């Protein structure tokens, strides 16, 4: 550093991007690259892009099955978003590239700043010029006649020691300078925070999808998109243990099963990551609070590892917030589900005259072929079984917190030959609503929709039989004829015969298409001005006819129809009508009733191998340390300039701080007072910055 130039600007000594004081460089390619990568504007632009992409990723649900996206956006936008990579935006090539770029940019910035910062921290600037001292916000000057310069200097250093400063003395011949620094670790804060960004970025990249992407680009790896089991997956979609340094995968283990792999979900398919050990699930348990909410999910597992454990497997308990870490692999309790519960069901036909149910046995996850003359070939996919269904009360207001356990349920799909499916949710036990009991069966045509429920009224034996027999009657053409068509006698035989025909037709129409069929038919045959009247008439006749059929059903059951028909039967009839009207939209040729089950649970475990975690945690520590150093220390410099002039010692005290000017002004004033006391001087020197200075320094650049 040459002597003639000041190297500290008074206002702030912060580093900036210019290369002040350095000789001009050649504009080499290296220099140009360095300038480009270290450019603050570039970094800011990239950060904004990252921020926007991240926000998009929060609004657009990530990693959903592709059919969901197609449904939501339509084929055109689905393809556009897919090309950009918005469904897994945080793993797309460009996002990772930008992050890598930012790490590089910060590294370059740091590389350029480190020498300057290091110099600032270690140098004492004992060559400061008197003119520079005059530029500092805090200064004081004394003339001390009849003093020994060496004694004064000792008083000064003693005062400095009292304030906990570090100093260095330099004798320049005609004057001496005692230069002080304090709080130089503040500068380290800058280094640490930016180094932390780099370190965290490197760790994050290590743990990201980079390795999988590299393998994919090299053709060593391909995502499997078919619905295969792990065993069936071909080698090109498999990863051996240690093939990549980091992954996060999932596996659903039914109780009693063992797995030595996990699935890595990627875009619209998966990869199989093999593990160097096997996980066996002994039991999985869900514990509940008294309120019915889940209290804990616990998996008891055994780790089988011949190489490291020999024949003795490791027994462990895995709970939420208590993962098992084995050989660097962290195994978490992630979720749970059904592990292939065995189900016993009855399929009650809905569109035939024979109401007898068919016994069906199946397993969750299985597919059963069903079919009928009307419906064609269907497959029954048993999707899910739940033991508890804790749901809000049907009539609850938001925030009411009234929950009810609706009991066990099965979820299944009926898929036709064309591949279209309807999804069903049937509850095993009857549910009480408005004082009456119903069997609930939910149906929906699309995965995102809410379920619409069929309410089957429950008879005296707690069974859906009465309703189903009632329904069967309506599909029994010959039976209906027998019931409704009888020989006529009386005054208007034609009219009576017509009426009977009308009643029969109405019932059959209703059985086909519910009330809509009736009103539709009316609209077709009746002129507009009579429509209202006619429809009402039709519906009344229908209702009355159905009542007659219902009475026949009751009689068949053995109920004494003359005496025992009351409120309950009336209510049943009305409910049955509502259900019958809904049946055409139900979309299934049978009602599947769950009669028995044997639950097998499955535990969803997540296995993470994180090679970069240690790096990232180091970065965290650096970041915290750096932030606190930057904000809670300030870097102060002080100088005492001594010279003997005309027989007196001229003493100039000056100082600056890179932060907290008000506090520093106070500190300086106290130092002044301490010094004055030691030197036996008045408290405020004639040429010092007065107490007015603190207010002025508020306006200083920080």
């Amino acid at each position, binding site marked *: 550093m040459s002597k003639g130039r000041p190297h500290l600007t008074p206002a702030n000594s912060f580093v900036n991007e210019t290369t002040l004081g350095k000789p001009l460089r050649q504009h080499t390619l290296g220099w140009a690259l360095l300038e480009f990568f270290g450019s603050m504007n570039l970094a800011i632009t990239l950060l904004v892009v990252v921020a926007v992409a991240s*926000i998009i990723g929060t609004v657009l649900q990530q990693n959903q099955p592709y059919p969901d996206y197609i449904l939501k956006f339509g084929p055109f936008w689905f393809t556009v978003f897919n090309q950009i990579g918005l469904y897994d935006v945080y793993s797309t090539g460009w996002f990772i590239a930008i992050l890598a770029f930012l790490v590089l940019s910060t590294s370059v910035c740091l590389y350029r700043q480190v020498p300057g910062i290091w110099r600032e921290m270690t140098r004492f600037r004992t060559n400061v010029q008197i003119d520079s001292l005059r530029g500092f916000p805090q200064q004081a000057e004394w003339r001390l006649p009849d003093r020994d310069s060496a004694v004064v200097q000792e008083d000064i250093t003693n005062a400095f020691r009292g304030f906990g400063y570090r100093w260095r003395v330099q004798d320049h011949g005609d004057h001496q300078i005692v230069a002080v620094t304090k709080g130089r670790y503040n500068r380290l804060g800058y280094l640490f925070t930016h180094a932390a960004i780099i370190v965290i970025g490197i760790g994050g990249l290590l743990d990201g999808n980079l390795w999988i992407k590299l393998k994919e680009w090299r053709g060593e790896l391909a995502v499997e998109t078919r619905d295969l089991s792990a065993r069936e997956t071909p080698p090109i979609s498999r990863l051996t243990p240690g093939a990549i340094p980091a992954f996060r995968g999932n596996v659903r283990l039914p109780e009693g099963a063992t797995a030595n792999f996990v699935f890595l979900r990627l875009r619209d398919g998966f990869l199989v990551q093999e593990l160097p050990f096997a996980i066996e699930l002994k039991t999985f348990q869900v514990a509940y609070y008294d309120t019915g909410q889940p209290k804990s999910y616990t998996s008891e597992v055994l780790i089988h590892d011949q190489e490291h454990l020999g024949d003795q497997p490791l027994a462990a308990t895995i709970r939420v917030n208590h993962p098992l870490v084995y050989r660097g692999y962290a195994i978490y309790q992630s979720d749970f589900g059904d592990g292939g519960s065995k189900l016993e069901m009855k399929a009650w036909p809905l569109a035939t005259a024979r109401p007898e149910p068919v016994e069906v046995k199946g397993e969750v996850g299985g597919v059963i072929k069903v079919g009928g003359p009307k419906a064609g070939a269907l497959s029954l996919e048993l999707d899910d079984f739940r033991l508890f269904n804790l749901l809000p009360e049907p009539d609850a207001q938001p925030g009411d917190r009234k929950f009810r356990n609706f009991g066990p349920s099965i979820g299944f799909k009926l898929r036709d030959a064309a591949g279209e499916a309807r999804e069903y949710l049937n509850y095993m036990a009857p549910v009480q609503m408005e004082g009456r009991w119903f069997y609930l069966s939910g149906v929906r045509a699309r995965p995102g929709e809410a379920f619409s429920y069929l309410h089957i009224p429950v008879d005296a034996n707690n069974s859906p039989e009465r309703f189903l027999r009632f329904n069967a009657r309506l599909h029994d053409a010959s039976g209906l004829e027998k019931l409704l068509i009888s020989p006529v006698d009386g005054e208007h035989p034609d009219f009576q015969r017509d009426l009977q025909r009308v009643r029969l037709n109405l019932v059959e129409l209703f059985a086909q298409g519910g009330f809509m069929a009736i009103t539709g038919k009316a609209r077709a045959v009746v002129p507009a001005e009579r429509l209202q009247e006619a429809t009402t008439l039709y519906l009344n006749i229908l209702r009355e006819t159905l009542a007659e059929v219902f009475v026949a059903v009751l009689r068949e059951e053995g109920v004494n129809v003359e005496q025992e028909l009351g409120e309950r039967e009336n209510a049943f009839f009305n409910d049955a009508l509502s259900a019958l009207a809904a049946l055409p939209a139900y979309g299934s040729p049978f009602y599947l009733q769950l009669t028995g089950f044997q639950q097998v649970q499955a535990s969803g475990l997540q296995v993470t191998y994180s090679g970069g975690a240690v790096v990232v945690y180091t970065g965290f520590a650096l970041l915290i340390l750096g932030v606190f150093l930057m904000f809670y220390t300030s870097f102060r410099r002080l100088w005492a300039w001594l010279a003997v002039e005309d027989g007196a010692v001229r003493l100039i005290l000056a100082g600056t701080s890179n932060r907290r000017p008000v506090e520093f002004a106070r500190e300086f004033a106290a130092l002044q007072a301490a010094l004055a006391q030691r030197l036996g001087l008045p408290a405020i020197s004639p040429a010092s910055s007065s107490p007015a200075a603190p207010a002025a320094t508020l306006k200083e650049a920080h």
Partner: protein
Amino acid sequence: MAATREAMLEHWNQPSFWQRLTLRDGLWALLVLVGSGTVWSLYQPYMDGYEIAIQFGATLALIGWGRYWPPVQGFTLAVAVLSVLALWCYGADYELRKSAFLLKYVLESQAAFMWMSALYVLATVTYFAALFSRSAFIGKTATALTWSATVMGMTGLLVRWRESYLLGADIGHIPVSNLYEVFILFALITALLYLFYEDRYRSRSMGGFALLAISGAVAFLLWYAFGRQAHHIQPLIPALQSYWMKIHVPANFIGYGAFALAAMLGVAYLLRARAEARNPNGLLARVLPPTELLDDVMYKAIALGFAAFTLATILGALWAAEAWGGYWSWDPKETWALIVWLNYAAWLHLRLSKGRRGAPMAWWAVIGLFVTLFAFLGVNMFLSGLHSYGSL
């Protein structure tokens, strides 16, 4: 700043930390240790290693905080007395809150929160009255109201902690587990932060603005309790059953509180700047706090908030590594926390590196509050993800 030479010397001329401690410091430390020791003796068998470490850290932090800012000592004492009184009244019967007079009208958690709410709203009005009337007495009343409200709120939280255990031993937990509880924490922390700066800068002029944010929180809180019945104590879902909740959530709210405070000061700044430009001798220009003061406190608040928020996000990542399979999952809440962090990092960059000040920075602080609000509430309300504990 008027300060005697002796005071300055006393502050600076005794380098040894231990030499500077006074009798009061000793008594304070003793008091905290006695309280902490009582907690230890009662509950140590139920705490795991991490919770013991947290208690140890909290004890030291409280001693340090009380020494650094003496009003905390009186505050802690008041809260301790009221809470212990409430616990004594309760005994083991949770239902006493409906019958015992002191509990029902003052000390049971909901009653305490109602007192807190009323006092904060009163304080808001009183601060503005003090601002426009320039009466020191009204100003002192406002400060007293704010302190009282904070005492009641903190007492309410501590009593609620006990109430959750009265509901059931396995239900009990620290009351920072859902949106209702953290909103109360938010109000308390913002108030404490404001009271600290009020004390340090010896100025009550910012009070009305700071309390406005708190009153907003109180309004939301009251709607949430009465409209959505959100005040009921719910047991913890498995993912929240962790010691991390005790440190990650409060750290986050120091951040949120500081950012909210900075935003309200930004509003005051803009009002004053506009008033000065329009009519330098008008009422607003004379009465509102000076822009230099607002600018300085705004910067300090954002710096503190940023430090706390950095810590909170890191703690959240460490918790995620124990609960969710890794320190970062690009979950909407995590991602928005990053956005908030970047936002204030940028603000601080401009302030520290480029020395930028003035109205644009004030605007930025206000906009920053909206970003923060979205990360705090919006994510829970509109977006789905792993963090949906605080949904409406």
